[in-house]
């Protein structure tokens, strides 16, 4: 039987949420896309391009294209600063209460001309574009930074706004949506490298995480470090930081790939740089990675064994203590820069979202699935999972998983009972 309400709510506007929303919209479904931050795109759209003289197949630009396409699609309604408050009903007839925090800027009126930011006295600016690429296309007033919300009587931005888009009285408003299905695409949290105290992140400025390196390359385009001193000659990547350890019983799948791609980019930009990657098991599988790995197998030094300690030497360099398994002894090496390849951990607010939606978590802390065969369906009919909220994935897999979630939602909405087929699948 065809369900009458065919609209779909997508929670989270990372690349898998965007992929689901885009596919559903192209198939004629009305989509509400809600995002808790002020900007859409999540992590994928914020990474850097790792191409040297040829593309490194990291899919960031493909994610960016889908994001731009979703922003102008007529059947997708984007609600930023919004979270799910309450849920009732079942497949085909969900009632969802959304709380949208106020941006204090009317998105229909804002033309992103930047005049408000120019006059804002707060340091750092309290009113700014939603992201560097300003997606969605409007500014946002940050309550925490704005002097007006700290008691000062300041309305410089409001008076200078040519299109009268800034309204301080905007209260958080409540949306009552009725949708046929829900796709959860809330993404992941980057493992906080401070939890591995012995590796020195947060203590030594030359210890960065993979995410910091991505941000440096995204902002500067080359390895420009805040610490003085010339280009780092000797760089170490430490794998499996926050993956495959006592509290994370899974491989985050992305760290070996981004470490090798960033290492290749560093060596391309600075041929004298020597890069060492410390690993347990090198994950070099996947589409398009074969000839890529052959190319840099020679130039990168791979050492089997994870460092246990990073200390700063008197000369300001970093001394890394590790057990070199192939030589069977403990060694210490000195590096200019140490990058901790941090892994994927479950999102921070998974607990309350799971409670609101009534979906359970698996023992790694990601959202649980009905059975290993359908990695999109949760224990609640009509609520589907997309992307890294169900488990670690790289960008192409997240996109595929998002599109698959859309496909399952469409099938559920057209009255299809996806009863289990009785067959045993082993990889």
């Amino acid at each position, binding site marked *: 039987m065809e369900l009458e309400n065919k609209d779909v709510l997508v929670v989270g506007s990372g690349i898998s949420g965007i992929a689901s929303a885009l596919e559903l919209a192209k198939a004629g479904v009305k989509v509400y896309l809600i995002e808790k931050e002020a900007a859409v795109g999540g992590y994928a759209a914020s990474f850097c391009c790792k191409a040297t003289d040829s593309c490194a197949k*990291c899919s960031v630009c493909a994610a960016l294209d889908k994001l731009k396409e979703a922003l102008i699609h007529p059947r997708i309604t984007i609600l930023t600063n919004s979270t799910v408050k309450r849920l009732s009903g079942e497949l085909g007839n969900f009632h969802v209460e959304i709380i949208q925090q106020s941006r204090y800027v009317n998105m229909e009126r804002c*033309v992103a001309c930047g005049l408000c930011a120019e006059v804002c006295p707060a340091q750092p600016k309290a009113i700014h574009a939603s992201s560097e690429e300003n997606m969605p296309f409007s500014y946002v007033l940050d309550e925490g930074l704005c002097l007006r919300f700290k008691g000062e009587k300041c309305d410089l931005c409001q008076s200078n706004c040519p299109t009268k888009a800034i309204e301080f009285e905007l209260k958080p408003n409540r949306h009552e949506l009725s949708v046929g299905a829900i796709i959860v695409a809330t993404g992941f949290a980057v493992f906080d490298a401070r939890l591995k105290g012995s590796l020195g992140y947060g203590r030594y400025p030359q210890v960065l995480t993979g995410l910091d390196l991505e941000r440096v390359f995204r902002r500067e385009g080359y390895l420009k470090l805040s610490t003085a001193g010339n280009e780092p000659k000797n760089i170490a990547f430490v794998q499996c930081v926050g993956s495959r350890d006592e509290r994370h*019983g899974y491989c985050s799948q992305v760290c070996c790939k981004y470490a090798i791609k960033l290492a290749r980019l560093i060596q391309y930009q600075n041929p004298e740089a020597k890069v060492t990657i410390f690993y347990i098991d090198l994950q070099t599988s996947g589409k398009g990675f074969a000839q890529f790995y052959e190319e840099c197998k020679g130039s990168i030094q791979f050492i089997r064994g994870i460092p246990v300690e990073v200390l700063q030497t008197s000369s300001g360099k970093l001394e890394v203590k590790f057990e070199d398994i192939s030589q069977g002894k403990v060694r210490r090496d000195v590096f200019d820069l140490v990058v901790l390849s941090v892994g994927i951990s479950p999102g921070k607010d998974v607990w309350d979202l799971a409670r609101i939606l009534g979906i359970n978590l698996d023992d790694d802390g990601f959202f649980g699935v009905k059975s*290993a065969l359908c*990695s999109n369906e949760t224990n609640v009919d009509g609520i589907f999972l997309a992307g890294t909220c169900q488990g670690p994935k790289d960008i192409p897999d997240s996109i595929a998983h998002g599109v698959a979630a859309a496909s399952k939602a469409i099938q559920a909405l057209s009255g299809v009972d996806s009863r289990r087929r009785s067959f045993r699948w082993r*990889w």
Partner: protein
Amino acid sequence: MEKEIGIFLCNCGGGIKNIDFDAVREKLVQISDVAFVAVSSALCLEEGKGTIVSTIKDKGVEKVVIAACSPEFTEHTFGEVLEKAGLNRHLLAMANVREQCAWAHQGDVTKKAIQLIKMAVNRARLLQPVQKKELPINKDVLVIGGGFSGLNIALQLSRLGLRATVLEKEAVLGARLGEAESFSSCDMGPMISEVESDDNIEVLTSAQLVRIEGNVGNFSVRIQKAGEEIPRKYGAIVVATGYRTQLMASSEPDSGGKILSQAELCRMLAAQSLEKQPRTVGFIFDFADENSRFPTLATLDNALAAKEKWDSEVYVFCKSVKVDSKGAEKLYREARARGIVFLKCETPPKVLAKNGRVEIQAQDILMGEDTVFACDVLVAEQQILPAEDADILSSLLNVGRDSKGFYQDENVHLYPVALERKGIFVVGGCRGDLDGGRVLSDISSAVMSIYELLSPGKIVVDSEKVKANPQKCVACLTCFRVCPHSAIQLMRAENEKEVAQVADAACDACGICAAICPAKAISFEGYTDEQIVAQIEALGTS
């Protein structure tokens, strides 16, 4: 000269300070065929759009130039505004005076802004309307390959009301799974019966695709079955021909069936009674082919099963265990907990067959020196390869392959299941080595893309945006060979000479053909040679 061009300038709410819009206005009004130059503060807001529609209507212009922010986000909305004002959306030329002029340079950039707008005016002067056209399409789907992916797609499509034809080269569906050729052993019985009983799905076994013409929405193919060719029409095609494995040639001659493939071991495990249960089992993987997940996953599964069923000693020789799949790390930990010995070696172990047993000489990095292990049964490394007929089928379909020979070019814009030809999708093992979860995602992605493409029953295309002029075309086939999307065919209209014809549905508007055509026969509306050169003509005059 008849005044037919209207120019709208937008100072972005006053945000653009280093352009003197009045000076720009005086300069542009002097252009002979410009009817008016209107300066507005926010064209992208409702009131701005309102003024555009009203000004166009009462001034009766035919072409519109809008100098504002980047067309990337706004060309779409201004196109709709033109349509509201009764103009074709393609009669719009935009000049990017904000991101690429005002924000990009220090100091006064009025001169550059004037030049950018003149470039847009020169282009606008030559713009022609492009109409939308609806093409009826065929809603049936051809699925090539009757394995796990192919059958699953057919089932999910039939649930969405789309009819599918499954083409299987072998005489039986799902023949490949469970053979020595594959890794996974999966009891396909119930799924095959479900497919055969589904009246939305037509199964053609021992049948092969031999000819294909047309493009997305209207593929006409010829299927060879039992010696005769059946002509058929389809809207979309899915390639799901799976992968093939090749047992790495063991250095010793086969010593009495001791060296097996993963699937053969599966069958041994599944057999109820076994005359002699192997006491020690060895696995080797990740030496010749360091980029595949299947060997690791299959090894973990079979090793645990062997431990459980035969309680045999299990040795695994590998370089790196590929655990980048959901649940693989847990399986790896369980295997170690159950006493399965993992020996990580940098160099591949040597395999010697001696007195009825298989001896493996490996240099394990922990122990440091060569050690010899004797096993009753050894599962040698299997390399994952594309199906044998991949060459024939990919040239028949004219689709690209990646560096290891699997379907789908290694281009990130094609992931997950697209190919450079619209309407043809590639799913599962034939696209690369994918574990179970990824194959299932591929299947659902393909179903979604096909549903989105075929369910409306028609395709809305720009009619003749890229067009080959029959008079000028000398049928030299260059465009036919060059088009990356195979959107150009040689057509012979009745009693006319054979000329190139661009299929609007398949064309992706890249313009590669228009650039290379030696007879300048192909025009690409919006970016014709004249329109590009006209923009260059506006340079130099300050």
